[in-house]
């Protein structure tokens, strides 16, 4: 039964990684940049929801929506101020800027909300479903997280595949210059991508903190890095890949811990290295020639 419990915990942890990884993969797939500030947008989203529901007494759903709005605006502002001026620069310059933005957000949060951790009140309550006479526990948060993850993945697949904006995004992803010649507003498309990615970050932040209710300015950084790993694992740029990578990473992490808590992270990354050696583009990644 402990194997089944570990599996469920792994899927629950993995779904959080998956939602964060979806944001990474969207932005990478379309803007071809690694937005390392993504993890910190998650943190901002969680803080917004924390204050909205805690201090202003809004219902949980309104808190989540408010967090999504704030993060969307934040994401678009970051893109406009920090990344857009560097669109023609070397990709390394954008990467370093993203790390700078990440530090900026973390330190602003430290200044605004102080370093002492806050305990996040779960937006879906603390209940759980018990099976097999209480031997197997599935929390409501885990169920909601997995559902949210699947819904978001399906919605994003539909959006990029069927809608006009989604097609524009894919066009930008393939060739920005050609897309512009075809009359696609590349700047607007990329801005839209950041808006969607950041709204997802807000949802991820709320679900992350509902599962693990400890909120501080560095809350987003480690899950952000793990989710980035998950996105690479699943094949960065691929939407189903991000989800698969996230969930697998969560499961591997929990089982590695059950195997030996001292070396769990080492096991996780060893698995990643093996996968990337065998399949360098990640599990579901397409082999495209990289233009750097």
């Amino acid at each position: 039964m402990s194997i089944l419990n570990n599996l469920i915990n792994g899927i629950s942890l993995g779904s959080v990684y998956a939602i964060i990884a979806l944001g990474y993969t969207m932005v990478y797939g379309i803007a071809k940049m690694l937005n390392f500030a993504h993890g910190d947008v998650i943190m901002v989203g969680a803080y917004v929801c924390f204050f909205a529901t805690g201090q202003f007494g809004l219902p949980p759903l309104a808190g989540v929506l408010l967090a999504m709005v704030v993060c969307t605006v934040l994401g678009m502002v970051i893109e406009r101020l920090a990344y857009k001026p560097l669109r023609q620069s070397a990709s390394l310059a954008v990467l370093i800027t993203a790390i700078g933005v990440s530090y900026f957000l973390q330190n602003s949060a430290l200044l605004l909300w102080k370093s002492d951790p806050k305990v996040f009140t779960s937006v879906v309550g603390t209940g759980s479903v018990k099976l097999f006479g209480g031997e197997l526990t599935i929390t409501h948060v885990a169920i909601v997280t997995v559902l949210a993850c699947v819904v978001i993945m399906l919605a994003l697949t539909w959006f990029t595949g069927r809608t006009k904006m989604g097609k524009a995004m894919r066009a930008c992803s393939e060739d920005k210059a050609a897309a512009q010649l075809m009359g696609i507003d590349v700047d607007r498309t990329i801005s839209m991508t950041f808006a969607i990615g950041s709204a997802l970050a807000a949802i991820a932040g709320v679900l992350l903190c509902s599962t693990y209710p400890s909120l501080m300015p560095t809350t987003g950084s480690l899950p952000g890095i793990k989710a980035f790993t998950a996105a690479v694992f699943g094949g960065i740029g691929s939407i189903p890949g991000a989800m698969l990578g996230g969930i697998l990473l969560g499961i591997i992490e929990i089982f590695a811990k059950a195997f030996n808590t001292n070396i769990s992270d080492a096991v996780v990354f060893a698995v990643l290295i093996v996968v990337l050696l065998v399949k360098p583009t990640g599990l579901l990644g397409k082999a495209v020639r990289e233009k750097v």
Partner: protein
Amino acid sequence: MKMNRALSLALAGALGLSLLAGCGGGSTSTPAPAETGSAETTPAETGSASGVIKIGGIGPLTGSAAVYGLATKQGAEVAVNEINALGGLQFELDFQDDEGDAEKAVNAYNALIGDGAQIIYGCTTTTPCVAVAAETNAARYFQLTPSASSTDVTAGRDNVFQVCFTDPNQGITAANYIKDNGLGTKVAVIYNNGDAYSTGIYNAFQAQADEIGLEIVSVTTFPDDTNTDFTVQLGEAQKAGADLVFLPIYYTPTSLILNQAKTMDYAPVFFGCDGMDGILDLEGFDTSLAEGLMLMTPFNAWGEDERTVTFVTEYQEAYGGIPNQFAADGYDCMYAIYEACQAAGITADMSAQDICEALIAQFTAADFSVDGLTGTGMTWSTSGEVSKAPVVVKVEGGVYVTQ
């Protein structure tokens, strides 16, 4: 309508004030030395003649450990005000920020002795304290730390003393207490193997448990205080049938462990060390989760003895909020120095080096003991470690109850 506007104005005013107050906490450390510096250049001789001993304090007032640094600063200030009100020997405390960083702590130390500090109080956290201890030992300044608990702080340095328990001491005391009071027969340990404090306590706990025959059925670790998932660690403890889980860790991961244990319907006795103090003050924390939690802390702010009540009241009036053990450690540091100075006949015109030798002799003297908030009859060994009885508290109804 008018009422509303008045109210909102008042609220805005309060917000503005609180912002200013927030800034004040961080920035007082910067202007303070300037003020004392200028005040001291001319009347330096008069200052000494009237008997003001200058104490230089070091600790994190900003950064992630600011909670601890501010507490040690404010607790000490309460004591200094009390001592100065007694007449007699006068203290002046200049407290500098080290941001929890070793290099900045040494810079702060140099600035303090440049300003004429005669005794060093600090540092709050271990790593900076080790760095400063090397300096004070070479330059012969007496140093007393409220809360740096590693044995690395005092090892080989006759001039450095601690008011807090050492890490190994906590591990040994915890094992003995659990065994003697029959709190648990099968013990699980979850500790942070990336942290010297946590590992230090665990190693001593394990060694002592082996010696006294306390059965440890499960030992699991986590790598970092940002770790959030403890289901596996708790699952192993539950599977091994542990009826007590020993947590030599800080309060942030503890809050997550308590939450996840509740989801799993796992309710052993949770037993922690002084790093767990502060868990009840966590913003948004459901204190019912901590019901029955036991921890060793030298100070109980809800204690009913007169001295504790006076200290808590004075602290609340001056800074707001309930003082934690770090504040009480700071308070005790000032009184330990005060009583040692009096017993050794130290005067403000003595050099820092003379004061250092006199205080070392006094602290290690067989008949010297200090009664403080964190223990009665505190004595010090030549290694600089304090000896006092541990206090175990249990959380009942959202407050500590001394056992």
